[in-house]
């Protein structure tokens, strides 16, 4: 019974923790302009993150060590450093976006300028990272993030022509007034938003924090293969409801407030309140995950003690980096840089960093010295290789598309 409970809890937190500020904004932006015609990019990203999260989770469960720990050892310090800098910069950018996302979410509740909220968000995140138990942080915020299911309910309540909506998703039919380059840009952005590098670092390091062993591989696989796809459905619900409410009015989504309007249109104040709870929980959860991922990646590379499962005095570098990251993230936002613009940049640069993040995982997961009999099978290798090609294509196209379309305008 307790095993079943743990399984259900894991799946639910995986669903609730799947959506972050990048998913919220990008899916609403894309939904309002393209409807579900780019659903394939989200689904592809979700499949990709399932493939690589399963590998990194398996690595953690079998070796008892997290990804970066092994990347440097297996591929040497130079490749490891390249992997570290690219992934870490993107993760840090995502961390800043998530802090901004929490502040913007709270701003919608209290109508106080988000810049006044940012420092308090920084304090709250630091306290959670310093004091809260890993499992409590993961489960509470993950479960509260389930409030975003309200987008699915809103979509249902809006009573769309399901046949037309599904047809649009299946045929990937681009609206006639949109350019192909913009369509491609948003495809890369959605792919990057779904496959954000921090997710694998957090997943694999979290596995070590939770003390996974080979016995936990089944639970881990259920979390990944059930929880993440259901989380992906939330992304599609955000896009679908934006298409139905914002699309006909030609509203382009540039603020978090606009993301919630379809829920208000469908479910009124109660629905909007639940959506706001979901915004706060999803962004706060992701802020904690990205903040931890920055600390994990640097300390694992340099071989320092890391993790919330050890006392802070035994992991000085880890906690110093967490504090420094929070302070820098807050300072960055206080320059009045637009958090939504940071979010848009972070999802595109995620796409750029993908090959450097995922190639080493594929290499380590194929190394029988680390993995023993749990080394990648044929299916995992085929899927891993296919996605490696896809992430290289997305990474190559991301910057030219960003410049050519002027960030999707």
């Amino acid at each position, binding site marked *: 019974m307790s095993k079943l409970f743990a399984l259900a809890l894991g799946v639910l937190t995986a669903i609730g923790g799947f959506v972050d500020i990048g998913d919220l904004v990008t899916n609403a932006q894309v939904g309002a302009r393209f409807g579900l015609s780019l659903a394939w990019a989200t689904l592809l990203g979700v499949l990709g993150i399932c493939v690589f999260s399963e590998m990194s989770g398996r690595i953690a469960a079998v070796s008892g060590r997290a990804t970066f720990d092994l990347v440097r050892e297996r591929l040497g310090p130079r490749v490891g450093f390249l992997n570290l800098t690219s992934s870490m910069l993107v993760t840090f950018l995502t961390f800043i976006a998530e802090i901004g996302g929490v502040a913007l979410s709270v701003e919608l509740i209290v*109508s106080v300028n988000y810049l006044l909220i940012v420092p308090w968000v920084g304090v709250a995140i630091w306290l959670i990272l310093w004091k809260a138990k890993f499992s409590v942080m993961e489960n509470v915020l993950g479960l509260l993030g389930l409030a975003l299911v309200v987008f699915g309910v809103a979509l249902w309540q809006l009573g769309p022509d399901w046949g037309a909506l599904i047809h649009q998703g299946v045929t990937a039919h681009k609206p006639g007034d949109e350019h192909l380059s913009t369509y491609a840009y948003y495809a890369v952005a959605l792919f990057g938003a779904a496959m954000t590098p921090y997710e694998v670092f957090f997943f694999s390091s979290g596995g070590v924090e939770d003390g996974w062993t080979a016995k936990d591989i089944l639970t881990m696989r259920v979390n990944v293969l059930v929880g993440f796809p259901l989380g992906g459905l939330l992304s599609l619900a955000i896009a679908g409801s934006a298409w139905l409410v914002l699309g006909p009015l030609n509203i382009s989504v540039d603020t978090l407030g606009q993301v919630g309007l379809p829920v*208000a249109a469908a479910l009124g104040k109660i629905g909007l309140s639940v959506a706001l709870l979901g915004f706060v929980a999803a962004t706060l959860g992701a802020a904690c995950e990205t903040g931890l991922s920055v600390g994990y990646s640097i300390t694992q590379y340099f071989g320092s003690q890391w993790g919330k499962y050890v006392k802070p005095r035994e992991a000085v570098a880890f906690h110093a980096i967490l504090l420094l990251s929070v302070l*820098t993230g807050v300072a960055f936002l206080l320059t009045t840089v637009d958090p939504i613009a940071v979010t848009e940049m972070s999802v595109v640069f995620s796409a750029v960093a993908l090959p450097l993040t995922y190639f080493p995982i594929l290499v380590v997961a194929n190394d029988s010295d680390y993995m023993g009999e749990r080394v990648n099978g044929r299916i995992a290798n085929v899927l891993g290789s296919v996605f490696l090609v896809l992430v290289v294509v997305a990474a190559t196209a991301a910057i030219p598309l960003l410049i050519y379309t002027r960030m999707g305008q």
Partner: protein
Amino acid sequence: MSSNSGTAASWSRTLVAVGVAGCLAAILTLGVVYVRSWGDAPQTPSHDAWVDQAHTSLDEVSSDVATVQLLLRLVDDGDVMSHYQRVVVLDSETAAGKVADHLSGEQPSQADGTTYADVTGVLSDAGDLLSSVRLAVIRQDTSQYQALERALTKMQDRLSKAEGEVPS
């Protein structure tokens, strides 16, 4: 002795790790300050670039006006909390103001002078209207909402007309 050297190595790793994190943070912060300093220089776009910007600006402000229209409709139905209303309307007003300021700060070619006056004029009027909506929403002056909704609809028409008159 070995314990001392182990501690020293551990501290040295700690210092290097924190140092690398600090350097990356400094690079990012300098990067954002540098990027934010762009835009201070006056822009003199070509005819094509200006026309392109005019279309984009009209689209963006039209989106802001549509957002506020939708918001007022939802407020009429009692679907949005007052704090949320304020933030959405203020965000739309701020965004429209930025777009209008940016476009009016450009130096168009002489041939685009008339279009420049028309486009910046309608963008400025849209900004003023959104300010009026913001005043009414924050004062919770519901008696003005219907008139404002009508004004927003008219403004949408003006924006569409202005976009149609900008050469493509």
